[in-house]
């Protein structure tokens, strides 16, 4: 049992009943997070990243939502747990940080009170001891003069400070898994850099697993141990940062990397738009926008993920038996890496 990964998500599928029909937000996603590891879910808005993480801790409202697939956390199947059991895991063992710290704090209570509350919900400690812990935590996340700031209200904190207070709150119970949903997107670069450094330190210190969601590839390269690239609810490619950034295999990943400012092949963007989630195309979800799509790409299911290097998988038909992957090599791969040819295994 101890060898089981911290978090193991298999075939996660989340759909919503809408007036326009059944909307499939996450479609058969597999993710694992080990202890002391940061896994980044990367993708454009609308690719299903946020819904995927909310499905993991069952924050998706059912109905209209419906979540299928297995989510195992420390070997326990979260799908079989009752709501009270889930509640004792949420916050205590799995902490969630959301994009907008503004909405996630109650402005009627002091920041310290809210952090202390998070501690007292899950542990039996005195008010004074909980507050002392809150001061420690604020200090730990780099709030200057924490002893005085602990009695401030959220509106007295700046955006970056609020996000750090949120992280302090999330860490209050020393969770085994931290789910961070675009925690730095609303922040300035200088503040972002500090938060990323903090997450890295805490990961190393507590051996915490981190599932980090972002659309910012620069952030990904700062923080990720492994990357899962999502598109239209599906995983397109997975691998470690060096694989993904230097030898991207999937055409979507390559186009995404080409969009990076300063790298862009004459800033092209990706023509077309995301497919309609209520009526996804047959075959590869990216085929309608892909330069290398052949007829077989638009048939059947999303191609199975196939290993293109050690621990590096892509869901692209060109890597399958009977197809010629060299058609992809002509792509304007980022950096036009000369090692590209020999990097396949």
């Amino acid at each position, binding site marked *: 049992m101890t060898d089981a990964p911290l978090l193991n998500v298999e075939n996660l599928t989340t759909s919503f009943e809408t007036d326009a029909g059944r909307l499939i937000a996450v479609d058969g996603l597999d993710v694992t997070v080990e202890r002391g590891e940061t896994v980044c879910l990367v993708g454009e808005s609308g690719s299903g990243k946020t819904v995927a993480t909310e499905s993991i801790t069952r924050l998706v409202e059912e109905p209209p939502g419906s979540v299928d697939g297995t989510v195992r956390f420390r070997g326990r199947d979260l799908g079989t747990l009752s709501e009270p059991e889930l509640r004792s895991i949420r916050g205590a063992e799995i902490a969630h940080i959301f994009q907008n710290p503004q909405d996630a704090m109650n402005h009627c209570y002091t920041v310290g009170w809210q952090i202390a509350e998070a501690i007292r919900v899950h542990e039996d400690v005195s008010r*004074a001891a909980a507050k002392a812990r809150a001061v420690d935590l604020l200090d730990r996340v780099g709030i200057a*003069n924490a002893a005085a700031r602990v*009695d401030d209200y959220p509106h007295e904190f700046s955006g970056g400070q609020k996000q750090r207070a949120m992280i302090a709150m999330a860490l209050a119970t020393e969770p085994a898994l931290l789910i961070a949903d675009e925690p730095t997107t609303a922040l300035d670069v200088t503040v972002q850099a500090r938060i990323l450094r903090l997450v890295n330190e805490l990961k190393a210190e507590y051996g915490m697993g981190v599932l980090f969601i972002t659309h910012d590839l620069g*952030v990904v390269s*700062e923080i990720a141990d492994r990357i899962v690239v999502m598109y239209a609810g599906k995983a397109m490619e997975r691998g470690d940062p060096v694989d993904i950034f230097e030898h991207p295999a999937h055409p979507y990943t390559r186009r995404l990397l080409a969009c990076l400012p300063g790298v*862009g092949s004459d*800033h092209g*963007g990706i023509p077309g738009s995301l497919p309609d989630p209520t009526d996804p195309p047959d075959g590869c979800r990216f085929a309608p926008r892909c330069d290398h799509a052949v007829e077989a790409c638009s048939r059947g299911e999303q191609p199975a993920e196939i290993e293109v290097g050690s621990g590096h998988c892509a869901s692209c038909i060109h890597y399958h038996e009977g197809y010629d992957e060299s058609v992809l090599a002509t792509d304007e791969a980022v950096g036009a890496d000369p090692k590209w040819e020999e990097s396949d295994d």
Partner: protein
Amino acid sequence: MTETEPLLSVRNLEKHYPVGGGLLSGPSGAVRAVDGISFDIARGETLGLVGESGCGKSTAANSIVRLEEPTGGQVLFNGGDRKGRTRNDDGTHPNDVTRFDRTEMKAFRREVGMIFQDPSSSFDPRMPVGDSIGEPLSVHGLDDRRRRRAIVEDLLGRVGLTAADYERYPHEFSGGQKQRLALARALVLNPELIVADEPVSALDMSIQADILGLLDRVQSEFGLSLLFISHDMSVVREICDRVAVMYLGEIVEVGPTESVFTSPKHPYTEALVSAIPTPDPRTANRGIELTGSVPDPADPPAGCRFHTRCHAVVQPPDLDVDRTTWRQLLDFRLAIEAGEVDAAAIEERARIEADGDGREGSTAAEQLRRTFDLPETVSDSAVEEDLAAAIGAVLDGEDGRAAERLRSTVRTPCERQHPESVDHGDGHESACIRHDPEVRTAREWQTEQ
């Protein structure tokens, strides 16, 4: 002379908002959102204005086009038929936007287009987008419906949409498409200057690249000047010819983009540039960490406004401590002066730790040092003496005496002297006291380790 004349030249622009005061007593102070900024934009040039949120970038843009009335300074706009005019005898300028009357303002609005951050909130949801885009034409007197439509349809094509999109409503477009529509509307009066306030911040990376490419193309096609406001340094580097860096209402550095990014002269620019996440998994970011938070613009720090957070703040030559300790000593003094040190809370905490969860107890003085990351003893004995005395005074509740005691040793020219802008050549200017040769020769300039 018209050849070298910039299209837009902003001189000492100020926008202060009155704050405080009662119903009858009048304002008691002012938020100095924009406090004397100057820059030029040449014809066909893109100038980027960057800085953290709250530094006054958007206020600057709004004051330039007089969406908000500036409280001081001049904005000289030499577009349209205003080329080559010279100053009046009394020092005013006929092209000064801040002094334009209604008629002149209306003409000026025709020469300047604006794009905002959130394209969803800048279109009327009940109006076909074609009508929204064409509306400025009718405002400025083009009454011929068919000609309006022809102009709009042509523009839709140029921004990558189709003429058939004319009749559609805003909700039918994605965020990126809406930003294209916003660009079309900004272009419809054939302006000479576009002011774009965070035009791609709300967009996904792939769409961002798309819109930046479009802006670039349209700019060269129409020969536009562009004032591009963004907090995203990598976007600015992509699109701008020159960059101006703003901090707390002032421009601290301005220069050609590559030169500012590759050899930033001001410590603030240095910190901003170093904080950009690099899309290279092999290099770890060793960003410069800024301490403290952005000061209150209603009460900006004296001297250089950045000295409260600067990693390179000038250290006095007689203070024999390392850079980190020096910065922490200064932070401690600034915290005392700002009344941020809560002696009661620190004593309480020391007490809780002493009789609490079995951890080793500590005195309030030790607790205070730990809270402010001060070393247990400072190597320089003279400083240590002052610091110990100051800590004692703080714990006695005498902040004034503590601050005064520390001020005798922990002091820096950065807080006394407002830095002048220094030209490093090629139009690259920055305002940092370390550029002053006198500061340098006084051996006070110690750079970070």
